[in-house]
């Protein structure tokens, strides 16, 4: 490619992310809907559940104190403290949804011959995958950052700043997990799409299933482990997904033939 220095807005991944948002605004709207739903509905419910039977009091400060105690002790009222982490695999939803737009764009570009043209310009399949992967991460990152900030703000209003601080690890693990799941999902689906013999290319439903399937360990760790161990288990899952995604990207040229990017 020509060596001209490009501005931030004209970087390929930014352009690709912008195009993805442009062709499917519904996914952005759905991501916003799930952010609001998670912040006001399911997260407070999970955090309250984490406090167990002790948190049945109607006073929000009491609930917050109960959450903090249960999390700090790692166990309480018959429920392992890790239950607060049940929010994590669900909280990645907005990130996955918004990245679906990139998958649509990838399939669309493949069918329109855009990927073929990129190959003719001397790009490798890896360059192309990287362009779309970065775009997906670029879309998911701000969505998840906004979500984390909104969630912590709402919890601090609802249960107090102390409780929000106690639950900070939940959001700290949600952000990298969402990006790892997005990376894994996008790479897997670009591969599936490339391997598809017919040109239907509607892989978004499969992408969602694959994305959510990778979060099953996060549910299990939240249910069966105490708070700290659940956090480590989720961190390990993040690392594993990141390694698999990077390995796939590294060997994509060998795993998927160039012809699979042709319309």
């Amino acid at each position, binding site marked *: 490619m020509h060596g*001209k220095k490009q501005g931030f807005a004209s970087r390929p991944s930014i*352009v690709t992310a912008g195009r993805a948002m442009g062709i499917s605004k519904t996914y952005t709207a759905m991501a916003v809907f799930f952010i609001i739903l998670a912040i006001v509905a399911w997260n407070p419910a999970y955090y309250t559940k984490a406090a167990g039977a002790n948190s049945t009091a109607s006073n929000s400060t009491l609930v917050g104190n109960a959450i903090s105690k249960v999390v700090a002790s790692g166990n309480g009222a018959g429920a392992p403290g890790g239950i607060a982490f049940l929010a994590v695999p669900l909280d990645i939803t907005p990130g996955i949804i918004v990245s679906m737009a990139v998958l649509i764009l990838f399939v669309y570009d493949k069918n*329109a*011959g*855009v990927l073929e043209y990129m190959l003719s310009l001397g790009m490798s399949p890896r360059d192309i995958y990287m362009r779309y992967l970065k775009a997906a991460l670029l879309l998911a990152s701000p969505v998840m950052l906004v979500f984390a900030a909104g969630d912590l703000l709402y919890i601090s209003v609802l249960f107090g700043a102390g409780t929000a601080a106690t639950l900070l690890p939940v959001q700290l693990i949600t952000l990298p997990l969402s990006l790892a799941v997005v990376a894994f999902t996008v790479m897997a689906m670009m591969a599936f799409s490339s391997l598809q013999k017919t040109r239907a290319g509607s892989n978004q439903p499969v992408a969602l299933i694959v994305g959510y399937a990778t979060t099953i360990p996060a549910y299990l760790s939240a249910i069966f482990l105490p708070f700290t161990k659940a956090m480590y288990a989720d961190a390990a899952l993040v690392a594993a997904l990141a390694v698999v995604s990077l390995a796939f990207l590294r060997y994509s040229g060998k795993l998927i033939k160039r012809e699979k990017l042709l319309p």
Partner: protein
Amino acid sequence: MHTLELENVDSGYGGKAVLHNISFKAGEPSVYVVLGPNGAGKTTLFRTIAGILEPMGGRVLLDGRELQSSGELKGSINYLSHYNALPEEMTAYNALKFYSKMEGGDPDKVIGMLGLENIRDKRISDLSQGQKKRVSIAKVFLKERDLYLLDEPTASLDPGLSKEIRDIILRLSKDKLVLYSSHNLYEATDIGMNLILVKEGRLAMFSKIANVRSKSYRVGIRASKDITKVVAAEKDKSGYYVLTVSRPEEAGRALKKIVESGILVTEMRELDNPLQGLFGKER
């Protein structure tokens, strides 16, 4: 001056070869018309030369350097595929800008070159097939390169624009190598200097078009009176008197004879193309 050379190239898809043992050397700046029946392997040939497909065997060399091993050389080729390869959600200008950021070039220049001013700010998705094709062709001319691979560039274009495109290509071919595939045999003879004939994935002919001769030529004549008594012609269903000659010059002599007998000739045209015979039974 550039040289494209294919040495025993096999290429295809999914491990199955479509092209078999293709070898030729194109070094004269001109238009090389690539002809062949549907499914003969023309697009596969273009994709292989463009570096989109890696050959299963053999080598593709540009100026003596292997294309597949040189990323720099891959950028010396402009490839126009069957597909328009345009982001449909963008305007024509933004689509060209999108590609100019990848490969360089000036969108405004090609917009002027191909007369796209009136559709500059229209979305690609709102354009007709012919207009999309024009934008697609414009992107190929964004940056001047050594080798142009044009896969049916005038398909779905009106005759006027086809002529303009051919003129641009002819100008280019003065110092560039242009490989041009077409199903239009008249267009092929009009624009091409050299012929690359591909049949069933094999190189059937590599020759100057001027050297391709038919065994016979059929000439259609419309005239004010019956000419069958003057020359050996037969009237067909469409109203033409059909004259079959073994060399083009014989048609000229026949015309002279008809005119000298006092018959007014209102039309005279070649009914077949010298390249038509190359297709065999397929056409």
